[in-house]
């Protein structure tokens, strides 16, 4: 590990936006007020699958206070075409279809029409006056159901892509792909033990506390202005421009503060609708979703069916592994099963592997990313089978994992060969942690472990830094700050410039005011935008050296920068002193950088959990929880811990309670925060953390990104702990009281 010492990195300054967020001054999307503002409401489908026969908006339009009504017929008449907005080639009709349904509704909650009115109450009332005639159709709600021959079809034009080739087969399977490594049959033949198990996981929601919102003003000069809550303002700009057939430069998106996203605020839902309403009325229109709309009308993460088969020698060495992953995309293709396939065996070096992935459309909301999307489902399956193998072979579960752990040079079945990774270091830290050896006494108690992986993302980021005369700098970036990244990005600039974190003033700006920057997602912001800040700061130093050289009548190459001072033989000036003299040496200094980094470093996270099961009710309590993760380099340790704790608790909720409880008609029966039961403070102990640092050689400071891997292992670790507590293997999420009681009854 690196022994380099830093002045700013690794410290815990108070975040730059902190005071605004504890005083209520920070402005989130829903806080927008402006002159002439209208309020929008959306009418949503009561059916999971139905043909739209007709829409009659006349009663809604006649209500006093209503200013406009829109439907899919209001999209520009451009016809269908294939577009790529960064997530692969998609028909425009699918992207538009999820904004406002056309022809058919594909899930309960699917948006059908929208209203703008002078108050939110009038808008809601008007939406309920829109008359839609539906022809209900049979629905399919799970991947195995939807894959059956003869299953009702969501899209009559959806043809299966198989092994990269387009087939003529019309079905609900959008894609079937396979990754292979070695010789699977030979590998299983060499094994002394082979276990094959099947798993089901329910649809769950990201559960951010702030509902989606968007305000749009289609200005009289033809430009469309949007204020919204998003993980990526440029994604909103590009998607909205595409949907409305505008050049991207005609759309300006201002990202407001965001109240949580976890991947769910990458897609666009409301912005084009608010824009169409604004176009019709000539006034700004704000739409804010209700909680029910968030559950029924935005993208949760896929439910899944997974089959895992692993073979091992008596000494524990894995010889072969096979996975079938069928993920529910929801109404439109894109279940992120590809990420499931990349992560399902990511922690292990296995010579013979086959992974089959199926992207399956079902009559549920179109799914979106949720923190390490696809990986948690997959790890739940793999890590419980690994635990079972350890039990059969009489091996310590961490020793078994260490024996097979992936390391630098390990090749995954999807083709990637690892650079430096921290899988072994995380497993060793788990084994050495006092929690792992602490006594756990009492009936119905058990301890479990698991490890998880997320590959992290690079993608473009832009940054400018201007130097102020008082020795501070202003840092302009395009990354929405969801969990303290203004600070983790600013700290990297501060480290380069030799100034305190508080002397960097970071500001997140609109799409007109900074270069293209990809989403805050994939754990990429501290990595990639941090790198852009690093490069922009280097650009500042280069220019400042020229100024120092000018002052001293030297060549710039004679000036060096160390310990916050510019130095040359016999000369020295501090950063702040030189900043005060920019005017007399040529004017302002602005550093700029854009990056599109390739050196992404994946992150492993493990957890140790103690549970107690109440055998009367099936309720599982978390007694103790430890999360251990490779951060590469922890820029701001408190915010790294915060990611680990938050991800762990989302994993606990996913494990024990959370699910879309669906009726046979496709109705979500628990679409409130009372019935969709996310963990409260009372459900949890403190979440202990240990940061492991195996620096990423692909980043100037070694950053890997820590937002996601931490959610991956908890469901598997909790399943393994439940087994030790009460002797039943849970292969269905959530491991809620009714699901656990069923297994306990089967056992007795």
């Amino acid at each position: 590990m690196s022994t380099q010492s830093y002045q700013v990195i690794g410290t815990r300054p108070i975040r730059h936006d902190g005071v605004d967020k504890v005083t209520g001054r920070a402005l989130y999307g829903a806080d927008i007020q402006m002159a002439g503002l209208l309020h929008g409401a959306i009418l949503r489908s009561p059916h999971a699958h139905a043909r739209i026969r007709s829409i009659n908006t006349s009663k809604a339009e006649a209500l006093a206070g209503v200013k406009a009504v829109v439907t899919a017929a209001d999209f520009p008449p451009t016809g269908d075409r294939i577009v790529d907005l960064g997530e692969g080639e998609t028909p425009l009709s699918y992207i538009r279809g999820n904004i406002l349904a056309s022809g058919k509704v594909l899930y309960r909650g699917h948006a059908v029409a929208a209203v703008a009115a002078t108050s939110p109450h009038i808008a809601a009332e008007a939406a309920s006056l829109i008359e839609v005639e539906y022809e209900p159709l049979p629905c399919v709600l799970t991947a195995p159901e939807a894959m059956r021959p003869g299953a009702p079809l969501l899209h009559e034009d959806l043809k299966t892509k198989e092994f990269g080739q387009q087939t003529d087969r019309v079905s609900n399977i959008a894609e079937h792909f396979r990754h292979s490594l070695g010789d699977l049959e030979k590998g299983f033949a060499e094994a002394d033990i082979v276990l094959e198990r099947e798993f089901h996981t329910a649809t769950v929601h990201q559960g951010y506390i702030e509902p989606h919102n968007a305000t749009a003003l289609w200005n009289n000069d033809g430009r469309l202005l949007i204020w919204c809550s998003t993980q990526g303002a440029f994604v909103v700009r590009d998607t909205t421009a595409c949907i409305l057939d505008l050049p991207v430069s005609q759309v300006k998106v201002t990202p407001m503060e965001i109240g949580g996203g976890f991947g769910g605020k990458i897609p666009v839902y409301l912005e084009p609708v608010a824009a169409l309403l604004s176009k019709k009325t000539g006034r700004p229109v704000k739409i804010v979703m209700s909680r029910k709309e968030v559950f029924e009308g935005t993208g949760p993460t896929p439910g899944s069916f997974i089959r895992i088969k692993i073979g091992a020698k008596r000494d524990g060495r894995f010889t072969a592994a096979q996975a079938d992953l069928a993920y529910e995309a929801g109404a439109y293709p894109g279940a992120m099963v590809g990420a499931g396939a990349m992560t399902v065996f990511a922690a292990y070096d296995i010579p013979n592997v086959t992974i089959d992935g199926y992207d399956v459309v079902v009559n549920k909301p179109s799914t979106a990313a949720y923190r390490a999307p696809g990986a948690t489902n997959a790890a739940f399956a793999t890590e419980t089978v690994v635990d079972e193998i350890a039990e059969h072979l009489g091996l310590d579960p961490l020793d078994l994992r260490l024996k097979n752990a992936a390391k630098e040079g390990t090749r995954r079945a999807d083709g990637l060969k690892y650079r430096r990774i921290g899988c072994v270091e995380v497993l060793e830290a788990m084994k050495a942690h006092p929690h792992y050896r602490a006594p756990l006494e009492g009936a119905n108690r058990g301890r479990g472990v698991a490890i998880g992986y997320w590959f992290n993302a690079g993608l473009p980021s832009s940054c400018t830094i201007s130097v102020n005369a008082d020795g501070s700098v202003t840092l302009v970036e395009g990354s929405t700050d969801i969990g303290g990244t203004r600070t983790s990005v600013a700290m990297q600039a501060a480290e380069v410039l030799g100034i305190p974190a508080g002397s960097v003033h970071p500001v997140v700006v609109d799409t007109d005011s900074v270069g293209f920057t990809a989403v805050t997602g994939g754990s990429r912001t501290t990595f990639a935008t941090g790198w852009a800040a690093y490069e922009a700061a280097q650009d500042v130093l280069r220019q400042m050296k020229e100024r120092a050289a000018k002052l001293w009548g030297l060549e710039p190459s004679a000036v060096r920068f160390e310990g916050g001072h510019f130095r040359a033989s016999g000369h020295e000036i501090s950063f702040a002193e030189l900043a005060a003299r920019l005017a007399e040496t040529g004017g302002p200094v602005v550093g700029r950088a854009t990056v599109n980094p390739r050196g992404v470093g994946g992150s492993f996270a493990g957890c140790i959990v103690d549970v107690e099961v109440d055998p009367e009710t099936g309720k599982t309590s978390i007694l103790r929880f430890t999360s251990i993760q490779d951060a590469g380099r922890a820029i701001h340790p408190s915010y790294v811990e915060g990611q680990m704790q938050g991800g762990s608790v989302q994993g606990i909720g996913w494990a024990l309670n959370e699910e879309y409880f669906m009726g046979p008609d496709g109705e979500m029966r628990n679409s409130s925060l009372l019935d969709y039961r996310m963990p409260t403070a009372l459900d949890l102990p403190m979440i202990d953390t240990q940061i492991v640092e195996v620096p990423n050689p692909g980043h100037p400071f070694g950053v890997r990104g820590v937002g996601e891997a931490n959610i991956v292992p908890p469901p598997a670790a909790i399943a393994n702990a439940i087994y030790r507590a009460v002797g039943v293997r849970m292969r269905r999420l959530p491991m809620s009281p009714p699901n656990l009681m069923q297994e306990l009854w089967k056992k007795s």
Partner: protein
Amino acid sequence: MQKKMHVTATINGEVQEFLCEPRQSLLECLRDILHLTGTKEGCNDGNCGSCTVLMDGRLVTSCLVLGPEASGAEIVTVEGLARGRELHPLQKAFLEQAALQCGVCTPGFLVAAKALLDREPQPSEQRIRWWLANNLCRCTGYDKIVRAVQQAAAELAATQGGMNRL
């Protein structure tokens, strides 16, 4: 035809008058009429706690109170916690303990925690968890929030505890 009601209430120590429709919640009145947008809406059915305010010393989810019900009441919102430029010890502790990430649940937690510490200056960890179970946070896993409340309790005890008990 008169549609709006005239309401007088004391909000963060100041007497305020406003007009609202009978169907508007206190949350809507605070945010849309009085522009006190620090109080957030997360669910509009009383389950997330983001809109928590104090009403005559009692914790309420302001989405479940109608605006006209606030007539004559004393309301405290997150905007009323700091004294001038001086942050409340809870606000300071939330910053120092990194007890917020996205920050949208923070106003509700701060108001709820203030109500707890006003009643019970030295709550146990379990008591803090019980009290804050009305407020959902999806980012932090609550660990740093609980620690922030503990820190604020300790600070309040050190600075004012002695005096209050005289």
